[in-house]
């Protein structure tokens, strides 16, 4: 691993983000990454965060048109409430703050505590939970579907709504709508090695893959002999479509888990488009890259969001962050 010691991995990265991105304010000690111009007068602020190891999520999505602040926790560990409280205080212009929370017990609890504390300090807080991973049954017998790739859709689209000056209830409602219309499915071709553990979190021989993995190095629901890119696309896209049943065009995120070469990811994209074509689902936009990652895991995920005119307009709206940039 390219690290000093496991204990300083997150702080080291924050120093690097500060060095590379003068357009951001990085509070290394308190672990908050902010738009330099926050609070932005009259605009709703978006605060997200979660365990580190999923970069560029979330700090790479801080900037005009997306997040106002990000709170990185330790590797694969939800941040602590103090971070979100500090972030909320720093970014609130008076228009309120939306917390974007991936659905993991740790994230939910820590953001909940933070929301209470921030509200005690007079900040109006709304929360949206992202839970898009169809590999997890959303039932009494689980902690509910995990938040994965759809986080990017929620952050981008809600960020655009906030940038337009929409009020907190509207931004929150749009964020919920994006999440409700998004589903993901992920596949691992290798396990992940965290700095603290220093060895792979599970054994995955080269000739096998895990279907239905999350982004924390946990094993998936099922192990199988290696499949081709086309077979994986069939499996993943169908798993998503079974749950989503989109009635119109979709936004597609073809996401790399970190160590899968972009060359392979683009080849996989071709297969994803093929399956969507076969299923009669038109694709409005496709984003390809390593966006919601799991350290050095090889693998990929597919996220689809059933678009509508408003969501497409907000998706296309300008964004200017370290990892996502378009429009003027």
């Amino acid at each position, binding site marked *: 691993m390219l690290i000093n010691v496991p204990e300083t991995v997150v702080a080291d990265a924050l120093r690097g983000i500060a060095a590379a991105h003068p357009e951001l304010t990085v509070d290394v000690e308190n672990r908050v990454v902010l738009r330099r111009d926050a609070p932005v007068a009259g605009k709703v602020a978006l605060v997200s965060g979660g365990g580190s190891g999923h970069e560029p999520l979330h700090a790479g999505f801080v900037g005009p048109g997306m997040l106002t602040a990000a709170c990185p926790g330790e590797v*694969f560990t939800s941040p*602590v409430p103090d971070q979100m409280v500090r972030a909320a205080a720093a970014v609130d212009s008076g228009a309120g703050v939306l917390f974007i929370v991936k659905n993991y*017990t740790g994230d939910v609890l820590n953001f909940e505590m933070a929301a209470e504390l921030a509200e005690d300090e007079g900040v109006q807080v709304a929360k949206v939970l992202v839970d898009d991973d169809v590999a997890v*049954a959303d039932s009494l*017998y689980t902690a509910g579907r995990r938040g994965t790739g759809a986080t990017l859709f929620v952050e981008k689209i809600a960020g655009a709504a906030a940038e337009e000056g929409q009020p907190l209830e509207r931004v929150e409602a749009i964020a919920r709508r994006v999440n409700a219309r998004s589903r993901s499915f992920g596949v691992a071709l290798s396990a992940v090695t*965290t700095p*603290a553990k220093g060895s792979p*979190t599970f054994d995955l021989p080269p000739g096998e893959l895990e279907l239905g993995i*999350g982004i924390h190095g946990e094993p998936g*629901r099922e192990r199988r002999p290696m499949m081709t890119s086309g077979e994986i696309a069939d499996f993943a896209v169908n798993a998503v479509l079974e749950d989503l049943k989109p009635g119109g065009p979709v936004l597609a995120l073809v996401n790399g888990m970190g160590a899968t070469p972009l060359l392979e990811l683009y080849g996989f994209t071709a297969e994803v488009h093929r399956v969507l074509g076969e299923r009669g689902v038109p694709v409005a936009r496709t984003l390809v890259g390593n966006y919601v990652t799991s350290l050095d895991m090889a693998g990929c995920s597919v996220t689809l969001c059933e678009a509508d005119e408003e969501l497409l307009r907000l998706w296309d709206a300008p964004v200017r962050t370290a990892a996502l940039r378009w429009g003027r």
Partner: protein
Amino acid sequence: MGRAGADRRAPVGTVSRVMDADFFRRWMELAAAAVEREADRLTELDSAIGDADHGSNLQRGFAALVAALDKEETATPGAVLVLAGRQLISTVGGASGPLYGTLMRRAGKTLGDAAEVTPAQLAEALRAGVTAVAGLGGAKAGDKTMLDALEPAVDALGESFAAAAQAAERGALATVPMRARKGRASYLGERSVGHQDPGATSSALLIAALAEAEAAR
């Protein structure tokens, strides 16, 4: 009833001796030492059915807790636990941070500002803490979480701290055949069966440290 049991043993044991802030600080130090010692095992367990961070999460939290106890004045058992809870919430993160933090804080608040507390009072306070954990996390016995160690421990606390430690240890072992229904192990469904829950394991360490603190007086 826990009380009655404790009282019954009082003449021969030391269980009914009251505990002051010093005792609670020692408990926390022994817990921190146990976490430090067992961190790799906790992470290893979490690696099988979670995300391989439980050991380092608690290591970070208990180190911060001990440092805070060194720096900040804590005059009462309740103050020790409230400070401990606040520290865990502010430094652990993950699921276990708010849960353990809440356990300690609620227990501490329940103790109020008494300078000394009896084992029965501690048992009552921890029961309130455990109830708060169940309320916060929505888990119940058999879901393969820390509650599977904490609940039997609290039930046995009235008997003796050693019995509580044994109950916690048994509870942790009993999570092995369970299928997880809460936390990230629940994502694995059937594949969570056959592994010991990391949080139940660390809970057993925490209660063992209490018995150690008691034994060392």
